[in-house]
């Protein structure tokens, strides 16, 4: 018997019991919807995190004060302040393949200009900072190494600062006052918007590191050192070299610094989402199996209910294969229907989640294909026993069945 005819027969049977068919497929629908929603939202979140990590710069290695091994990691960072400008200079001098190095101090200060004032974050950095962060200027120029040596009072400012302090004038060449000291604006950054953690990356004033240390925050220690590696491949070697160098500079003392690269940050950020994905995946898998059992249950009921029909088909010449195919295809149509509806529901619900959370949603084609294929396989696996049972019936017994 031809397959098309079997499909037609199976479709007719399902159409006669529309509500039951939909309810039977419901388990699969929910399972597949869960998988699709989970994968789409997970992918979206991952791409978001990856984008944000990438916005930290290219091939960046960071050194934080405080050790990861003594005390808590987070508690350690930045609290004990032992990184010095000499550390940064040593790295710049001795580490091969470090194309840019910038010691960093962070501070918040009230900034005045034009009779306006604005509270913003003051970054003390080296001239290489823009290259490390992959930031660009919209006008003017970055201060120079000479400015850094001479603790020059120059600044590069972000767009938010421009809006708040220089609303109607070209800021280049203007003066702004930090702690009552005049700094000359030499450059304006291109706008970048908010970062992953929700802070405004344009709300910034960058001054030479030395100027920040001596004139603004009056600190001896750095909040961190940023290093840009030449190539992604060299990152781990450079990371190791930096660790060795700083360790050597400290003699035999306990390490009081932490060296991290961007990849590790990205991994930390995605590790949680991966755990979530695995958990949801397990739940989705279980609900698919439960859905499959639901299909098997209904197919068994259906075979019993339709024993007479099977008897008639066998009596007029159906082979056992024809009957088996008929019920197998019915189960498959149910589960594929469940898969397709589940994909639709999954996409719809992830769209809703994304519009609520403002996350991007990436519906992966492979997840959709896999979901539909898996549900078809579930149909075959769980439909096989009922179909086999139907095909094994004796025509006379089946015809006599009341």
């Amino acid at each position, binding site marked *: 018997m031809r397959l098309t005819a079997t499909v037609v*027969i199976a479709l007719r049977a399902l159409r006669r019991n529309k509500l039951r068919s939909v309810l039977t497929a419901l388990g699969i629908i929910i399972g597949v919807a869960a998988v699709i929603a989970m994968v789409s939202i997970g992918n979206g979140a991952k791409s978001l995190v990856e984008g944000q990590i990438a916005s930290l710069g290219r091939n960046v290695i960071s050194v934080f004060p405080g050790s990861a091994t003594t005390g808590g990691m987070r508690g350690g960072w930045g609290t004990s302040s032992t990184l010095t400008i000499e550390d940064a200079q040593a790295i710049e001098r001795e580490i091969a393949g470090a194309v840019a190095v910038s010691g960093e101090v962070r501070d918040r200060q009230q900034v005045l200009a034009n009779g306006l004032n604005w509270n913003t974050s003051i970054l003390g950095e080296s001239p290489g900072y823009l290259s490390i962060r992959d930031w660009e200027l919209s006008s003017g120029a970055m201060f120079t190494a000479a400015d850094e040596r001479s603790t020059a009072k120059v600044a590069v400012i972000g767009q938010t600062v421009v809006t708040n302090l220089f609303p109607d004038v070209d800021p280049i060449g203007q003066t702004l006052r930090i702690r009552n000291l005049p700094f000359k604006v030499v450059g304006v950054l291109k706008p970048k918007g908010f970062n992953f953690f929700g802070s405004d990356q344009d709300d910034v004033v960058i001054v030479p590191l030395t100027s920040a240390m001596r004139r603004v925050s009056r600190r001896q220690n750095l909040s961190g050192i940023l290093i840009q590696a030449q190539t992604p491949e060299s990152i781990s070697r450079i990371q190791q070299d930096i660790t060795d160098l700083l360790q050597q500079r400290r003699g035999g003392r306990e390490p009081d610094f932490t060296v991290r690269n961007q990849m590790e940050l990205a991994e930390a950020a995605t590790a949680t989402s991966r755990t979530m994905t695995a958990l949801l995946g397990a739940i989705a898998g279980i609900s698919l199996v439960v859905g499959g059992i639901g299909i098997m249950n209904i197919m068994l009921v259906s075979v019993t209910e339709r024993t007479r029909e099977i008897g008639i088909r066998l009596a007029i*010449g159906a082979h056992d294969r024809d009957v088996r195919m008929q019920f197998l295809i019915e189960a498959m149509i149910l589960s594929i229907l469940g898969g397709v509806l589940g994909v639709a529901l999954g996409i719809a619900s992830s769209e809703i989640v994304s519009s609520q959370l403002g996350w991007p949603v990436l519906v992966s084609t492979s997840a959709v294909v896999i979901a539909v294929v898996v549900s078809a396989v579930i149909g075959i696996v769980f439909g096989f026993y009922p179909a086999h049972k139907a095909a094994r019936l004796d025509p006379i017994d089946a015809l006599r069945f009341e």
Partner: protein
Amino acid sequence: MQPVVQLENVTKTYSNGEVEVHAVRGITLQVMPGEFVAIMGSSGSGKSTLMNVLGCLDRPTSGRYLLDGVDTSGLERNERADLRNRKLGFVFQGFNLLSRTTALENVELPMLYSAERISSAERRRRAVQALDIVGLSDRAEHLPNQLSGGQQQRVAIARALVNRPQVLLADEPTGNLDSRTSVEIMGVFQKLNEEGITIMMVTHELDIARFCRRNLIVRDGRIVRDEAVPDRLVAAVEMQRLREAETAAKLIGST
């Protein structure tokens, strides 16, 4: 000419645990093409069991059954299914139509299981033709529950006919029908028989058996009488007589 149905000492024994029921105890029988045989006998005498063997729905316990010269005893399940599909047509007492399936689709069913590939247009054409033979082409799209018992049985006959079988088997085809509808069905059978189809049917009713050409009486799993019908009834004539009787009854009733 070779017999189309040939039974040689066929027996059928059912064994339910310890009890053995000898439903058929050795039947030898030859039916030539074009015959029209009625099988009669009291309840439990083994008629249905015999029909199931003849219909290749069941295997004999012993003996040989040759259908159209082919020994069926060695055939396996699917080969017997093919025989049922190609060479045999079966009509049941309870019609056995697929519910919620139109008359036309019911008649198309055997063609879905044919070894030869039949296009859906051709399937439809043959099904309509078969319905036409039983006088039901105007009911093609009706569901079984929208048809009278006689009409349902005619759909079942059309389904049995549609693959042009050599033998039409019917187990009490008129058992669920009133006498007038029974005569109608016998009319269909007589027409088919005149066109050359061999028919074997089981009936309890002597009147119905008289429409056939040959009568077998079965008792206790054996054929005890086998005779030609001397004064065969013709369905058309009987219908006419019934109609006249009805008119007469109405006239009497109305005065």
